[in-house]
């Protein structure tokens, strides 16, 4: 079975020298630079074989950072989830793309780019996936100014109510 997060951290640090991992309430926080190393190690070592990236999401914490979170499971050993988290600056968040490791990340990374503006280096074709291409801005960020902001704030200027 998969070992708890602490042992996972220590074994990973033994396997990959020069790796600084921290654990925040059972989530492995990985520095952006070493993400691909950790990912490949988790996927290829026989003990883990986390070959299935179930979910990839970006979370916006306005003033200081944007986090990208990865939920990994193993279809071979049927164990899971190992949760990786990467913390990126808010101005120009870039991280290595996981598509070479898990092909499933392709659309989810494009969605994170489209809605949050997180750039993924090495992604085969990083384009907007849900919005139309000429759309400016990243709609899911907390500080995104909606065109008719008041409709969002709840006073129903938009609805037919007089």
């Amino acid at each position, binding site marked *: 079975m998969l070992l708890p997060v602490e042992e996972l951290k220590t074994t990973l640090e033994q396997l990959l020298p020069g790796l600084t991992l921290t654990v925040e309430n059972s989530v492995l926080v990985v520095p952006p630079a070493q993400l691909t190393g950790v990912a490949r190690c988790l996927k290829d070592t026989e003990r883990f074989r986390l070959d299935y990236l179930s979910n990839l999401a970006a979370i916006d914490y306005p003033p200081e950072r944007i986090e990208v979170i990865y939920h990994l499971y193993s279809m071979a050993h049927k164990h899971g989830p190992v949760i990786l988290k990467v913390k990126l600056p808010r101005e120009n968040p870039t991280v290595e793309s996981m598509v070479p490791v898990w092909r499933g990340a392709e659309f989810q990374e494009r969605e994170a780019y489209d809605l949050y503006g997180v750039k993924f280096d090495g992604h085969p074709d990083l384009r907007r996936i849900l919005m139309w291409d000429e759309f400016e801005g990243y709609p899911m960020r907390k500080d995104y100014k909606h065109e008719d902001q008041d409709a969002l704030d*709840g006073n*129903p200027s938009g*609805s*037919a*109510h007089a």
Partner: protein
Amino acid sequence: MSAENSVAPAESISRERSASSSGNDARLGQRTTPLGLGVIQGMLITLRQFTGTYPVGRWLLRLLRLDKGDGLVTISYPEVKQQHDERFRYFPFLVYDGTKDNLRCVACRICEQECPPQCIHIVMQKDEKGSPVKAHGRTLPKTFDIDVSICMSCRICVDVCPFDAIEMDNTYEHANYARGREMVMDKDRLLKSNEYFQKIKPSESAVVDARMGAKKAKEDAAAAAAAAPKPAAPGAPEAKV
């Protein structure tokens, strides 16, 4: 009639019957009819459904002891309406007991905040000085609009209403030509009597009436208790209800 010499499929019969790991799985998904007759089998099924829709056909199929198929399932709408169950819900309506101004809603606006698409708009009845007007001992809404073109009849307003003032209706013929005024149902179009509620949803209204009855009984008891001790002895401990 015509044994169709149809196209040869991608795999031939003999190679499939090789053994496989667990017994029953070998036959799963393989052909059971000989090559070329699968098409005929499909045609016989549609023919059986076809004859099953005619009375003469059904009699014939019963004669040949064949499965009669499902017959005609269409409901010709304007003449015959589909019977909906009691819990069928469409747009909400406001409940009043007896006369139209004795409505249960006290304009507390909980449903306005909780409504996911924000389509309920309530303005409380206030006199010129701005203090709420009371009728039947309760405040009441001056206007209570539900924008029916936005409402998705999700019943959350009924769940969160502490006064059982709003219930779900089951009339679904609301088509009209304009999206503006007609689709915003104002207070008197929303108001319907409690008898109507009991007629369309018997068991649900029974639960609501029981709860209302219990609450009224508690209020009467408390009111009676509050009124009674004044003449007898002020400050005597009220009987815990």
